[in-house]
């Protein structure tokens, strides 16, 4: 069964208008597989008849359901590892070294899906910043259904097994049947809000760090520029932007400079809220003048012996479990002896 051309054209146009996301020809399968559950729920055997049914009226609830079904991203805890290593090893030290230190740290996790990213950020910061820093994380997504799930903070075993070190699991989660629930202290740090990246951030500005990963790749050039522009206005001058590994601001927006980190795509805002100029001189010609020095990758616990050279250490694991010894359980659970 294939999607009728007029139906695909309509859906692609709708998603472009509402979410700024381009669905090129060839994505018919994606549209069909994502919309089939909605069609069936509405009593249609085929996506074609379902879409034609909502096309004439465009009720907001229907439109939102279609857009949400097509914009949900795959996610996992500590996805890609290196952004979280960069957060702990590069970004936090740089923010802390500013005059006045880091009494408060605001982070925006944009397009947070079911919440694994903001909770991974919270877990990273639990180790990277001291008690003198209060952490606030605003996590946004276009899709209300994923936000509701994220706010509950309950994840299946399959989800926690993907990317979450066991030491982090027992420290920051509690068992909930066969699932795991994020502990209250971590959950309290994260506020989930519905937000469309094409609209101005409604939740105040002043972000020190924005995670906007694997989002720009879906947008065409003008939308990429518009989104980056809005993100820039939500940041403190000199704040940090973390993109997906395949993404860049280069050629899109002059308001950013690339920060040399061991791995990952990290940029610093040269201006920020209200167009104020960064105290750091823009367009640094050499990495030596940037406040961040490239830090060597955390050595893998498994490369010291030379017995397993053909492996890459996972950045997520290496960031938190820097030694091969059991001391990686850095904060033993009360009552447990080592």
């Amino acid at each position, binding site marked *: 069964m294939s999607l009728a051309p007029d139906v695909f054209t309509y859906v692609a146009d709708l998603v472009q208008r509402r979410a700024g996301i381009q669905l090129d020809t060839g994505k018919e399968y994606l549209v069909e597989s994502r919309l089939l559950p909605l069609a069936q729920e509405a009593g249609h055997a085929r996506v074609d008849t379902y879409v034609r049914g909502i096309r004439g009226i465009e009720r907001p609830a229907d439109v939102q359901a279609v857009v949400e079904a097509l914009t949900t991203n795959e996610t996992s805890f500590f996805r890609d590892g290196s952004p979280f290593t960069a957060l702990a090893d590069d970004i936090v030290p740089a923010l802390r070294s500013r005059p006045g230190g880091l009494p408060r740290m605001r982070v925006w996790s944009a397009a947070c899906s079911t919440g694994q990213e903001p909770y991974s950020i919270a877990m990273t910061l639990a180790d990277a910043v001291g008690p003198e820093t209060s952490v606030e994380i605003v996590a946004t997504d276009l899709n209300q259904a994923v936000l509701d799930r994220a706010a509950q903070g309950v994840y299946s075993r399959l989800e926690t*097994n993907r990317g979450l070190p*066991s030491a982090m699991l027992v420290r920051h989660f509690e068992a909930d049947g066969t699932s795991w629930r994020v502990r209250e202290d971590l959950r309290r740090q994260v506020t989930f809000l519905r937000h469309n990246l094409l609209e101005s951030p409604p939740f105040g500005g002043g972000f020190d760090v924005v995670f906007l990963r694997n989002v720009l790749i879906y947008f065409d050039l003008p939308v990429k520029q518009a989104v980056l522009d809005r993100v820039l206005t939500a940041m403190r001058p000199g704040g940090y932007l973390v993109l997906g590994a395949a993404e860049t601001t280069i050629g899109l927006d002059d308001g950013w400079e690339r920060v040399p980190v061991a791995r990952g795509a990290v940029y610093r805002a040269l201006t920020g809220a209200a167009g104020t100029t960064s105290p750091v001189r823009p367009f640094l010609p050499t990495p030596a003048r940037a406040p961040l020095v490239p830090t060597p990758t955390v050595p893998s616990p498994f490369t010291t012996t030379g017995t397993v050279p053909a*492996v890459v250490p*996972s950045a997520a694991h*290496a960031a938190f479990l820097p030694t091969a010894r059991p001391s990686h359980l850095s904060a033993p659970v009360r009552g447990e002896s080592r």
Partner: protein
Amino acid sequence: MRALVVDDSRTMRRIVAKILEGLGYETSQAENGQEALDALQQGDAVDLVTVDWNMPVMDGLELVGHVRKNRDLRSVTLMMVTTEAEQSQIVRALAAGAHEYLIKPFTAEELRAKLDLLGLVPLEETA
């Protein structure tokens, strides 16, 4: 990459070994902790040991403790693979020196994700 699969269930050993072999590992097997410890102490060099908890003769937790005390085996990565699902049991195993913990039943994808976390997926598999 070499792995030692320790489990008293023959079926379980075969399942784990098959997944690991699919990722490019050479595998060997042991039926209990003592048999595994003997193999390791006799110089059977492995990168990874997957360890069941409840086994006759010597259980998995005891095996983990012995391996961790042996300086010659410092480079060995230990992953518990067990039906023990209590949070307190995970804490015990990690405190004893296990690097990761996978609860049975699990999928091949979950085992692979754990290996990825440990940096123990052979390079050609990580693309």
